[in-house]
């Protein structure tokens, strides 16, 4: 049975239950005019539909998981199966082939041994499919009957359905927690392995980064000092890029919400959002071939002889342009959400528009603006393409923005897609870097939440 059919079946039966329950609820009303149902007929409908759909779907999922095993063991009992090779990939392949033919997904077998299994497969599939179908329907009917029989005029269907909705909302918000756990789980093992080879102290406090993924022999902890990477990340993504993006983004948002006519705003806002969507390769080429030489020449012209073509500024500037929309869009929305009465109040005091914006609107919109900046910073930190093309890949620990620098994320990508083997500490360092980055952003967010909570201003 294809999962789609079982799914459709469950939905179909639910719909049927929904309609039936709804009309029953209407009937209560007709039978005794004037009585008020506790819940709307629709809620009765949803109640029954949930009782039909959820158990049926659960069973369908379960059945999809176990029926292939049942079918295979059924087929293995067939004499034709004795021709198969022993356990292993070939045997699996043949079974799968026979199965594909039996299900009509393939026209012929690639290995002749499988041919004999097609007929048994077909029989077994028919058998188990019908079992699955019948049980699904039974489960659906059992659930439906249970629910349907409980319907009464004063039945609290709404409360129950709402509890289900609430559960759904809770589950949705748990996805975030699960993802967080998932990330930690997918990083932790390799990180531990890495720290088995390189001391955490060398890693976290060392100031020199030049691991060689091709080297053999014992790693030298002195090559695994990640400070230059962290510094590069902060310098490029959170400092230089933000110096560009925050003023430009915020001022754009202000201009669009407060000064521009509605028509201009309607056109410009989505246009700016395109900046965030231009592929980073494009920005990368732009940064490397247009901006970086310009920056170098400008720096050399003012006497900074150490300026190289690969510079943190070039990468940061272009990155800043890329993330303007992250700041401007979120700021725009939250400034627009400040009640008109606030603005009127300030203007009526004789404040100029700019004073109103700076002193009333921006403070009131601050949580939204901060959220936008956080998004922008994270996008900048996560960016790899521009960094490698414009800022080079050498891990320098310097405050000179005209020198080449690199970031954590670029190193992660480089290590994971490079030629080094996966048991080499250099490659494993990618996981450790990821872990540190993750923990750092987690801590920052923890602090940020506390701070924002304290200073959040309520208004209406």
């Amino acid at each position, binding site marked *: 049975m294809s999962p789609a059919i079982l799914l459709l079946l469950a939905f179909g039966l639910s719909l049927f239950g929904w309609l039936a329950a709804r009309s029953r609820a209407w009937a209560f009303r007709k039978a005794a005019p004037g009585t008020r149902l506790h819940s709307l007929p629709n809620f009765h409908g949803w109640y029954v539909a949930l009782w039909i759909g959820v158990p049926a779907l659960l069973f369908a999922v379960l059945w999809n998981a176990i029926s292939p095993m049942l079918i295979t063991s059924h087929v293995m009992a067939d004499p034709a199966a004795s021709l198969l090779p022993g356990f292993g990939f070939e045997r699996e392949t043949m079974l799968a082939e026979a199965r594909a033919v039996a299900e009509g997904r393939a026209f012929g077998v690639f290995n002749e041994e499988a041919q004999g299994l097609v007929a048994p497969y077909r029989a077994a599939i028919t058998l188990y499919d019908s079992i699955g179908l019948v049980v699904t329907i039974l489960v659906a009917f059992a659930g439906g009957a249970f629910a349907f029989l409980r319907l009464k005029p004063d039945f609290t269907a709404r409360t129950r359905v709402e509890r289900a909705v609430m559960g759904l909302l809770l589950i949705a918000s748990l996805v975030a927690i699960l993802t967080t756990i998932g990330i930690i789980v997918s990083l932790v093992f390799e990180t531990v392995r890495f720290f088995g080879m390189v001391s955490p102290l060398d890693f976290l406090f060392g100031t020199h980064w030049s691991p060689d993924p*091709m080297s053999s022999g014992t790693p030298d902890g002195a090559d695994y000092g990640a400070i230059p990477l962290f510094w590069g990340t902060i310098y490029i993504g959170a400092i230089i890029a933000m110096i560009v993006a925050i003023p430009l983004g915020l001022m754009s948002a202000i201009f669009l919400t407060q000064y521009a006519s509605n028509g201009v705003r309607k056109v410009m806002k989505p246009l700016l959002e395109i900046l965030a969507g231009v592929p980073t390769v494009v920005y990368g080429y732009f940064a490397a071939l247009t901006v970086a030489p310009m920056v170098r020449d400008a720096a050399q012209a003012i006497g900074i002889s150490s300026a190289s073509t690969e510079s943190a500024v070039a990468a940061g500037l272009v990155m800043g342009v890329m993330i303007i929309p992250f700041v401007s869009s979120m700021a725009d929305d939250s400034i627009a959400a400040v009640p008109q009465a606030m603005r009127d109040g300030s203007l009526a005091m004789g404040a100029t528009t700019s004073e109103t914006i700076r002193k009333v609107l921006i403070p009131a919109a601050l949580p939204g603006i901060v959220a936008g900046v956080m998004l922008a910073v994270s996008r900048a930190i996560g960016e790899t393409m521009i960094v*490698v093309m414009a800022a080079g890949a*050498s891990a*320098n620990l310097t405050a000179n923005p005209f020198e080449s620098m690199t970031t954590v994320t670029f190193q992660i990508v480089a290590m994971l897609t490079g030629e080094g*083997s996966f048991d080499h500490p250099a490659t494993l360092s990618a996981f450790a870097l990821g872990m540190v980055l993750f923990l750092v952003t987690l801590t920052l967010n923890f602090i940020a939440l506390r701070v924002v909570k304290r200073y959040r201003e309520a208004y209406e």
Partner: protein
Amino acid sequence: ATRDQVRAVGSSTVYPFAKAVAESLAKSDPSLKSPIIESTGTGAGMKLFCAGVGAQHPDIENASRRMKKSEFEDCQKNGVKDIVEIQVGLDGVAFAEAQGGPGIALTPEDVYKALAKNPYGKPNTAKTWKDVNPSLPDEPILVYGPPSTSGTRDALKELILTKGCDENAEMKALKDSDKDKHDKVCGEVRDDGAYVDAGENDNLIVQKIEANPKAIGIFGYSYLEENKGRIKGLTMKGVEPTYATISDFSYPGARPLYIYVKKAHLKAIPGLQAFVTEWSKLWGKDGALAKLGMVVAPDDVLAGSAKAVNDLPVLDGSQLK
């Protein structure tokens, strides 16, 4: 469900050639689905390849270096017992500069002295090529090259730097006494800005050296071949990088490219056998791969590889490092 198309993973250097083989296979036998070639990097590819036998695991690993012993053991542990190793060709590491550049004549020793972090154990102070070798021009050292994670960098280290390093007898002796130290002294590249780690994108290196005639670029030979009009190869010990010189190893920058095949998949995956055979059809001197910039392996190697395609000998882990 089983798979009905070949899946190969691995090196980004081999990727363009594997792509061409896949395309050629799909054209010559329309009944087969075109193989999926993934460019993961050799290391990540090895991990995937060695993760096990079955439809969810790739059939072929493209490698720009030989399988490591640890990787082989990983394979064995996960039940990937029978692996066939086939050398498909060569990749050259080429030094080049912009068409109008001064045309420095390099030797491995000069390159080593210019690029090593601690040439012969002492910190590198060379600023210009003249500091390295008085006969070279008085130009600052600025070399765009591959990152430490790339195979080309590994080749640079093994084939040029270590060779230049070993010209010195003391270092040669060190190799036997303290291998780790030797590796470090001979293989480590300076990170003070003279050598610019330019990422995996070789086209970008080409563009950067084209824009800056004083800079030198190091990248795969095929990029030199494709961009002949804009950049020119630099001689190494007087030998120019060409197909012929790389192929006969007189230009010291050639490294072998391999594919590794899972024997257990040969029967199960339709087209796998044909795909491997297709390689052997295309890797010759007039083959399509040479046109794409792959350097053809010497005749004896090719003969051995052709035999391997037929006999599919199982790789013996004990010869690996």
